[in-house]
């Protein structure tokens, strides 16, 4: 063929043509060279071995987003990270990943990262070189320790946040060599839990919970799904606990005791709205009821002092509710109670956690669902540590302070005096990777690399060790350096020659030393660990922990609160999206609707509707909230899931120097809190004061994505009572069924029944759009979502946003109703009662394109921009779209989103590096929506074709949302294959399809009804 073409009759040979082109091309190049500066376009002269253009390379590493240290797989394309997933081999996270984990990608490409070492000169920061910066740090340390004769010697102080064991060891080594002190500070800390474990069991670590093994779970204000020790692992455990076992008709029950329903609380089956701070009384009252009058052990006397009646009085709920719960807790062979977490750190938080430990003890849960193993994969640094150095800093005794991995200028109450004290330090150094409030005060910034660019490790649990390996070269925009390397270099400048030159060598050497050889030679072990992401380590369980007598005096009473008695108790809790504020500069997190309130970007004060009505406050009214420690103004969001005497404010807002996406959004709730440490753990108290809430007369529109929190009697998120599972009657014979049958009798057009989701029902007679000859042989992609498992955590939403290049639009656009997310978690209240112990029923529904077999969007598109593929996917052809928006109007699920502007234009360098090259970045004026991760389907199909044309295996295609879901509630696959998992799941009697019965859309997304313990009222389907 080529020859034929080359010797065509017209006489031009291919070679001649190429020569001509070559010569003219060269001429053009020469001409081009002469006109200006030559750009450095470097081809792959020697291509990197592991990179095939267009093919993703995956690396396993450890998430550095929080102390939990979940395992991560990072997808890199052409040498840059574009998406993260959970590592299924990781013992803790087991493949799931939270929203924040995904958002760490935006920390990597954060446009507000420091571009290089920053040196303050004459009050202005300028960029310097690394050598200059490191020498400056060494010189300042030298100067502080060995001052000029007429000056006093000053100390060197290191303030660190949570870091992996090896990093932490290096810091210790560094400070030892320098001769300074180190304190740690975590904005969100589990110190009371750890302290309680120390007091009760002598274990200096937070306990490990096996939620999945429990059948009755009690949370005393522990928000384990969104914050706490390990949200992903706990969500996974919770899902396996609470998911219904259809064959056995069993399901774990979850009771939430606390003044406010957090996301965790919203997942409860019952809510006992106890008074803030009464956890200890309730736990002890229950424990005493379980243990009976002849309780033994070190806490027998304590138990004597409590009973259900005293608990009920303290909590403000009925005695029966406490007794009944205690009875169930004792009877249940496998139960678990969790003490108050960072969202409820009142002045007796350690005592409350200890009381819950006693409750677990008397119920016999230690060793079955609670484990004291001596490993703390949690941030547990206390406020009292940093409090102790504030005075030293203020007095000018500190010559050099180094801040690393923490932002105390933001995350401490202003009354702590930290900022003022910090400013008294002669030379302030920050290792912050990106700008924050603390580094803004510093004289020298030596920016740390992102954890995707550096080495590290973590101990997710006893006996396991995870290596955090870099997945890519430094983002070239930023001249950063891993702080381990920086410290080693500074040590060199200080004259104490370290044994190793880089942190990588240090890390490797440390693990080589620790390696006991039992699992083969180190080299093999090391490579295996890097590849898998997790290896075994020598440390194991410290053995069964014994309850011991307390060595500290504790008060188990409801703590006193500051402020006037007629005020409302203020709850300041970590945000599921921002943590303590570390994630506030991620636009994904800013725009992710809060899983509870569905509000984006700004802060809100949660107020019970009754309280608000009494005070004449409406939704969106801006109120002034004042405590004895400060005041601020914030809009009100009415929330039935909070006690009438309590208001709540999330952390993470009100940044002033963290970057373009964080600054100016919301308020910093810490401004209302006293700078006070809980005793004896030393944690910062977050539930300490009553506040006066007064309307300011102003109001604003809430940037929410929620339309209505009520289903309006529509078959959207129905539920089924556990007792009715397996019985024919559970099919609520609603009006529709009857009416439809009548219609059918007279030949009317009626929806085709899904026949309980039998694969033979797909595709349905109405589903055949397009003339596809082979439509019946190919796959029909479908999804199943188990609403009984879904916790509403919204990890899928961020995963989808990351995978599919879904842009964020900003607060004003959200206010206009233009959020672009392809997935949303709908949240409907069915029964929420903040006044008494009662059943709780809140429904979460992940809503994405339903890929209808009989799609309303398809026939109305005038140009076939949306059409049905032979594989049953409702496809959207971006470059064919004219933008009439008729499809969106006609979509009953409202899952289509429109590009009102060219939103991606606003994405600054290098944040746009995060775009997934497998997915088109959409243009202005086109419609878009969930594609069932078509790029992943094609990837698997292509792989199958390359591997000898085999069929795509079930489970080979994993959508981004499915992969991320910690609860594993999403299953994707070919529903025409009766053996596929999705077919098996869909065969459940709980399967239904949203609105299908009403409008005959025949969706490919099947939902499994939530299972409740209480009776589902008929109106709720």
């Amino acid at each position, binding site marked *: 063929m080529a020859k034929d073409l080359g010797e065509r009759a017209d006489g031009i040979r291919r070679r001649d043509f190429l020569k001509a082109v070559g010569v003219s091309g060269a001429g053009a190049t020469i001409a081009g060279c002469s006109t200006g500066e030559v750009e450095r376009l470097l081809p792959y002269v020697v291509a990197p071995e592991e990179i095939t253009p267009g093919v993703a390379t995956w690396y396993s590493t450890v998430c550095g987003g929080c102390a939990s240290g979940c395992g991560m797989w990072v997808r890199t394309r052409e040498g840059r990270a574009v998406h993260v997933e959970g590592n299924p081999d990781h013992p803790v996270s087991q493949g799931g990943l939270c929203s924040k984990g995904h958002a760490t990608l935006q920390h990597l490409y954060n446009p507000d990262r420091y571009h290089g070492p920053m040196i303050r000169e004459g009050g202005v920061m300028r960029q310097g070189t690394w050598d200059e910066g490191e020498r400056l740090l060494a010189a300042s340390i030298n100067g502080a320790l060995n001052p000029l004769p007429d000056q006093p010697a000053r100390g060197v102080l290191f303030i660190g946040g949570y870091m992996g064991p090896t990093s932490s060891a290096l810091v210790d080594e560094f400070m030892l060599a320098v001769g300074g002190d180190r304190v740690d500070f975590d904005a969100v800390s589990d110190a009371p839990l750890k302290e309680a474990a120390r007091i009760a069991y002598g274990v200096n670590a937070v306990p490990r919970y096996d939620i999945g093994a429990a059948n009755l779970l009690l949370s005393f204000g522990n928000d384990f799904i969104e914050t706490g020790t390990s949200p992903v692992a706990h969500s996974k455990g919770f899902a396996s606990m609470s998911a219904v076992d259809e064959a056995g008709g069993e399901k774990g029950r979850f009771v939430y005791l606390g003044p406010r329903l957090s996301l965790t609380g919203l997942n409860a089956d019952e809510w006992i709205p106890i008074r803030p701070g009464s956890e200890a009384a309730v736990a002890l009252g229950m424990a005493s009821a379980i243990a009976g009058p002849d309780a033994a052990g070190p806490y027998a006397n304590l138990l004597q002092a409590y009973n259900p009646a005293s608990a009920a009085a303290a909590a403000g709920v009925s005695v029966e509710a406490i007794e009944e719960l205690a009875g169930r807790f004792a009877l249940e062979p496998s139960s678990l109670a969790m003490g108050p977490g960072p969202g409820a750190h009142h002045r007796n938080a350690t005592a409350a956690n200890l009381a819950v430990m006693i409750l677990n003890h008397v119920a016999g849960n230690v060793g079955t669902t609670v484990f004291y193993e001596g490993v703390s994969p949690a941030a547990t640094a206390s406020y009292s540590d940093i409090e102790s150095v504030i005075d030293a800093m203020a007095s000018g005794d500190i010559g050099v302070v180094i801040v690393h991995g923490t932002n105390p200028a933001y995350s401490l109450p202003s009354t702590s005096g930290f900022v003022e004290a910090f400013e008294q330090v002669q030379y302030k150094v920050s290792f912050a990777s990106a700008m924050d409030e603390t580094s803004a005060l510093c004289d020298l910034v030596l920016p740390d690399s992102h954890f995707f660019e550096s080495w590290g490790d973590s101990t997710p649990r006893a006996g396991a060790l995870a290596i955090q390996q870099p997945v890519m070269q430094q983002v070239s925009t930023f001249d950063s350096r891993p702080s381990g390397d920086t410290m080693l270099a500074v040590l060199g400048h200080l004259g104490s020659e370290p044994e190793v030159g880089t942190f990588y060598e240090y890390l490797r050497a440390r693990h080589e030393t620790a390696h006991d050889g039992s699992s083969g030679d180190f080299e093999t072990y090391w490579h295996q660990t890097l590849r898998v992401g997790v290896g075994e380590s020598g440390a194991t369980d410290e053995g069964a922990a014994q309850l011991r007598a307390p060595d500290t005096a504790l008060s188990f009473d409801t703590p006193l609160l500051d402020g006037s008695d007629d005020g409302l108790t203020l709850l300041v809790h970590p945000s599921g999206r921002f943590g303590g504020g570390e994630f506030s500069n991620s636009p994904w997190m800013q725009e992710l609707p809060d899983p509870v309130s569905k509000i984006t970007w700004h802060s809100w004060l949660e107020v019970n509707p009754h309280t608000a009505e009494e005070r004449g406050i409406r939704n969106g009214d801006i109120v002034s909230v004042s405590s004895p420690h400060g005041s601020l103004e914030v809009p009100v969001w009415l929330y039935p899931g909070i006690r009438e005497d309590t208001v709540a404010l999330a952390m993470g807002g009100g940044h002033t120097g963290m970057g373009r996406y964080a600054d100016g959004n919301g308020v910093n709730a810490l401004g209302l809190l006293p700078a006070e440490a809980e005793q004896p753990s030393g944690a910062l108290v977050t539930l300490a004061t009553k506040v006066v809430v007064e309307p300011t007369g102003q109001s604003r529109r809430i940037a929410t994505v929620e*339309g209505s929190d009520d289903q309006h009697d529509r078959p959207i998120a129905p539920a089924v009572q556990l007792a009715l599972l397996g019985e024919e009657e559970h099919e609520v014979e609603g009006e529709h069924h009857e009416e439809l049958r009548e219609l059918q009798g007279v030949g009317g057009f009626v929806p085709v029944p899904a026949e309980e989701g039998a694969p033979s029902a797909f595709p349905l007679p109405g589903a055949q759009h397009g003339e596809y000859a082979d439509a019946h042989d190919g796959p029909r992609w479908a999804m199943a979502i188990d609403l009984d498992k879904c916790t509403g955590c919204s990890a899928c939403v961020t995963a989808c946003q990351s995978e599919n290049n879904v842009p964020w639009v900003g607060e004003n656009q959200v206010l206009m109703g233009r*959020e672009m997310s392809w997935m949303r978690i709908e949240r409907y209240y069915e029964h929420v009662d903040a006044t008494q112990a009662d059943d709780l029923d809140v429904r979460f529904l992940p809503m994405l394109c339903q890929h209808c077999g009989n799609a309303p969007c398809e026939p109305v598109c005038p140009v076939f921009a949306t059409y049905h593929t032979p594989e049953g996917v409702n496809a959207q052809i971006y470059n064919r779209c004219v933008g009439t928006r008729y499809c969106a109007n006609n979509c009953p699920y409202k899952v289509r989103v429109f590009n009102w502007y060219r939103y991606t234009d606003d994405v600054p360098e290098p944040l746009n590096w995060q775009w997934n090259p497998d997915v088109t970045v959409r243009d202005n004026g086109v419609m878009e929506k969930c594609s069932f991760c078509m790029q992943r389907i094609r990837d698997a199909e292509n792989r199958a074709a390359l591997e000898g044309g085999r069929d795509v295996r079930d489970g080979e295609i994993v959508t981004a949302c499915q992969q991320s879901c910690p609860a594993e509630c999403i299953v994707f696959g070919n529903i025409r294959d009766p053996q596929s998992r999705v077919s098996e799941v869909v065969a459940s009697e709980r399967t239904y399809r949203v609105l299908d019965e*009403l409008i005959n859309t025949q969706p490919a997304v099947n939902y499994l009804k939530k299972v409740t313990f209480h009776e589902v009222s008929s109106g709720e389907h």
Partner: protein
Amino acid sequence: MATLGTRERGALTHPDLHRLDDVNRDVLKMLTTPGKGWWILFGIAAAGVGLFFTMWIRQMVLGIGVSGLNAPVGWGVYITTFVFWVGIAHSGTLISAILFLFRAPWRQSIYRAAEAMTVFAVMTAGLFPLIHVGRLWHAYWLIPYPNSRFLWPNFKSPLVWDVFAITTYFTVSATFFYLGTIPDIAAARDRATGLRKKLYQLISLGWQGSDSQWHHFGKAYIFLAALATPLVLSVHSVVSWDFAMSIVPGWHTTIFAPYFVAGAIFSGIAMVITLVVPMRKIFGLEAYLTTKHFDAMAKLMLLTSLIVFYAYLSEFFLAWYSGEEVERTAFWNRLFGTYWWATWTMLVCNGFVPIMLWFKRVRYSIPALFVISIFVNIGMWFERYVIVVTSLHHEYEPFAWGIYRPSVTEMCILLGSFCWFSFWFLLFTRLLPPVAIQELKEVMPPPMRKQAGEAH
């Protein structure tokens, strides 16, 4: 007109009109003396057209985001205004074609203005789908044209039907309008001078008023009238199917086609009154546009108001009667939801205000009719707003409910569309005889010798 009966001859013109010459003189005078009022109006209209295109171009550059549209309300003021102008376009053809076929003699004085209104209203309406699409530069994909990729529009989509409906309607109504003006242009030509005369010579197509020309003219006119008549019904039916073919509660009803056609005629007649009253005043056409004409138009307005109001009531009734929760909520929400004010504006303006037309005194009072016609115009715009916006903002999925607030851009373009329309209409009153000379003459009493003698 040769085909017109002579029963009511002379009944509708002013008794002071005696001579056929007077008609030529009075009508053609309009083309030569631009009053100050005309220039002021024209200036305002031209400025509005400037605003219109400025805002539109800005939207093209920045994106549809400059509107207030969102999810779930993907259509708003643009589509509302589109339907409004298509509706306005209807009564022109109705008056000229249908009433012509039905031999309604009162149409002669107003049909020319009504036809012009039709053409300009379609010209205005036709811009709105273009304004509203996300990628204007690809809007031509809605037109079926042969291409190498064998990509055709989706003939199932009502939007494609719309393309055909609007273009057909524009073509036919423009042709019909032009054809009817030819004899009058010739009359104008005979009096005009200079450039204007050249222009009229060209577009009068050599009209001499010979018997054979009149004969052919009559045939063609009847033929086009017959062709245009079904379009009156079909175009707005198709526009209504833009909504009715969807599954949106509040849109998906079978009543939409007749309901929209009646509404279109209703709004069209109201707009004719709104335009003709000032025209009559400014150009002193009291002799030609008598209260009898207005009475007839008012009766038609009353009739269509009743039909439209009946449609409203039946929609509410059927929503309740369906027993369907989604449907019931949609209509309950219309009356008492966020946009209650729009719905009540619609009900008051279109249902209650026209009740006054039952009274003869009101029908014969031109100021009263003018005010009522303004109410109807407003009410009919809000009717479309209610249909488009309130239906969309509360659909099936309660969590996805939303609120739409029109933006400044949309209001400017809405305002600009009136200016664009007025711009053309004002030009029309100066360039073409706005009252049909030849048809007026037909209904005038034939000149009598005696009268002629008296005149001398």
